[in-house]
């Protein structure tokens, strides 16, 4: 579904370098799909949302040493309406499960989910009455991050994987 057509050799956003310094606005040619995906992939805004221990590593990832801003995801949004990414960082209890489902439903499309840590991925060490054995019972999960807790670098790797995934999305990411 190409809308603007770039020259075949240049590919997405190819035209910009030629006019870098001469003061003119230059031009950019890309397939709409690629352009949109490029924009989305580089500004994934996560929801300010934490559940358990993994949430502390998520905060560490946002703090100065690891600095999630390097990946365009430093804008943590407290409102689900403004967030693209739900990082489920921790164990999901039976009491919390419906709440998470509702938060996910409140997020506007397109939206992605990272299951951070063993608990969110599969229940982790808590195979018992209280904990839901993996958040994928309720939500579609895009990337799973193993670890208990995963280090901030692991979260970055997941975000990187997610960006690859977003860049490859078709039909502007509309899901049936």
């Amino acid at each position, binding site marked *: 579904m190409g809308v603007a057509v770039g020259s075949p050799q240049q590919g997405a956003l190819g035209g910009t370098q030629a006019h870098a310094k001469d003061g003119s606005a230059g031009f950019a040619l890309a397939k709409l799909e690629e352009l949109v995906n490029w924009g989305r992939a580089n500004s994934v805004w996560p929801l300010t949302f934490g559940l358990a221990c993994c949430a502390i590593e998520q905060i560490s990832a946002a703090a*100065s040493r690891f600095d999630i801003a390097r990946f365009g995801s430093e804008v943590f949004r407290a409102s689900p309406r403004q967030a693209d990414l739900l990082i489920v960082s921790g164990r999901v209890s039976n*009491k919390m499960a419906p709440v998470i489902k509702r938060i996910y439903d409140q997020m506007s499309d397109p939206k992605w989910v990272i299951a951070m840590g063993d608990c969110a991925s599969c229940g982790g060490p808590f195979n018992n009455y*209280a904990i*839901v*054995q993996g958040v994928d019972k309720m939500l579609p999960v895009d990337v799973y991050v193993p670890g208990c807790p995963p280090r901030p670098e692991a979260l970055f790797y997941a975000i990187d994987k997610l960006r690859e995934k977003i860049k490859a999305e078709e039909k502007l990411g509309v899901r049936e």
Partner: protein
Amino acid sequence: MTEKIIEKLTAKFPAALKDHSEFRGDTTLKIDAEQLRDVASFLESDEDAQYNLLVDIYGTDRLNLGQTPRFAVNYELYSIPKNSFIRLIVDVPDPGRNGGTDGSGRFGEPLPKVASVTDIWPTANWLERETYDLMGIEFENHPWMHRIMMPDNWVGHPLRKDYPLGGEPVYFEKDRNNPRFAHLGKQIMAGPSFETELPEEMDTNGHMVLNLGPHHPATHGVLRLATELDGEKVVRVTPELGYLHSGFEKTGENKRYEKFIPYCDRMDYVSPMNNNLAYVMAVEKLMDVDIPEHVQYVRVILAELQRIASHMIWLGTHAMDVGGTPHAAPLYCFMMRERILDIFEMVCGARMTTSYFSVGGLRWPLPGAFMDAVRAFLKEFAGYYHDYHVMLTKNPLWLSRLKGIGILKAEEAIALGITGPLLRAAGVPLDLRKVRPYCVYDQFDFEVPTSTDADSYARYTVRMEELHQSMRIIEQAIDQIKPGPYRTADRKVALPPRQEISTSMESLIHHFKLVTEGYLPPEGQVYSIGENPKGWLGFGLISDGTAKPYRLRVRGPSFVNLQATNTMARGGFISDLITIIGSIDIVLGEVDR
């Protein structure tokens, strides 16, 4: 001291005291259920006893012990003036078909009943609700007997022995359409969970009820505060917990003693070292193990480093919530925390979930660079500590948002069972490291900071001073520490060294037994407390002589401290509620357990 109390008790209530015993320094009194309230008020008010701090209430289900009656309730009491602990055990009469109850249990089954002590020690309120929720023991004349952890529509009481651990069988199978997976996801309870009942006295018509959480950035996790508002003023706050209830106690009862150590990391996940320490101390008390001095010093150093790290999280998030210095303070605080995590990583390979202490010692020896790393950290931290003061202590925004906010007076705090910096900020110098030194805390020269203002600012100054005292303790500890064995020579709990296994048959047997069976503590009951950054972390263990604890009880300091929210926030502004939550310093993993 306890003999005198027992004497007095027998003289006053001849029929009440059924039995008393001593085990590992814990005194246990068996009290008749009928006279529980009389005995309780006597112990609370008598001038020789003055058991004014109710530490913990927990139930025991003795189904598999073959004792009758099936249920018992344990009360752990502490007397601040007399510095003494005592435990009351009350056998709860079985609810016969006609006797004891009218048969109107909430799920069709009659619940055993015992009198509530909420009017004697107000802190009993939540503890009794928790016992009701998880153990199914009802407390008569409780102000609001209601589930606290599980959803309202939950069926059954998870900590009972006939309630299964639950969970799902683990299959290694790729095919998602396999019929064996059909049951997955069925365990989620139907219906939205936030339609939990509110207390009846909440005026939902005349006032506005605002729900803060369970997903709110300022509640420090998944906590819901149902706040009744009259304009901007808070009339009443009802915290609703359990959104992170993970069944720690039940899990612990299904694991061997040593296998619970990694779980304690995940309770108060910003101070895992302290949790590990409190837990291994409890098991060591039960097993009566002697710990080498070197180990004690290492434990103190790591526990105090962890205290600093935990206070860093408190300071950073608190400053961010209150907005004194948006974003700068948390980043400065997390920077120093990262330095400590680096030291932990060097010691045990993990940043957060350390599990470094084991029963009888340490998991492995300290790395050689440890002491230098700690020294370098102390040097760097001293500079940052100064910066925190410069940033906040006289900051007018900070002052105006903290001074006079969230007053919690000493009497109220004691009645509510508050411990830790909150209690010390109210002027009670209660620090377990000082009054009942464990490890080698009696070897160090340090002070217990207190304040009498009892407001959020007092809590801030107390915690800041605690940071300073922790630095002092660490400094002294690294000067005094001597090399030595990193775990006890007691082969009942500690694995023999590798080379010994290949040369000595006896060691091989010990090794085999420890690995396959675990250690077998004697029958008995102990309760052990550690002074955590947030207050008293208590572990209760009941052993039936097997390798798994028969009953494992965790008293989370955050859980008990959180109960003071209503007292502190009542009558204040809604925005001050945020300050108050920050100044209590809660971790939801420990609140809900």
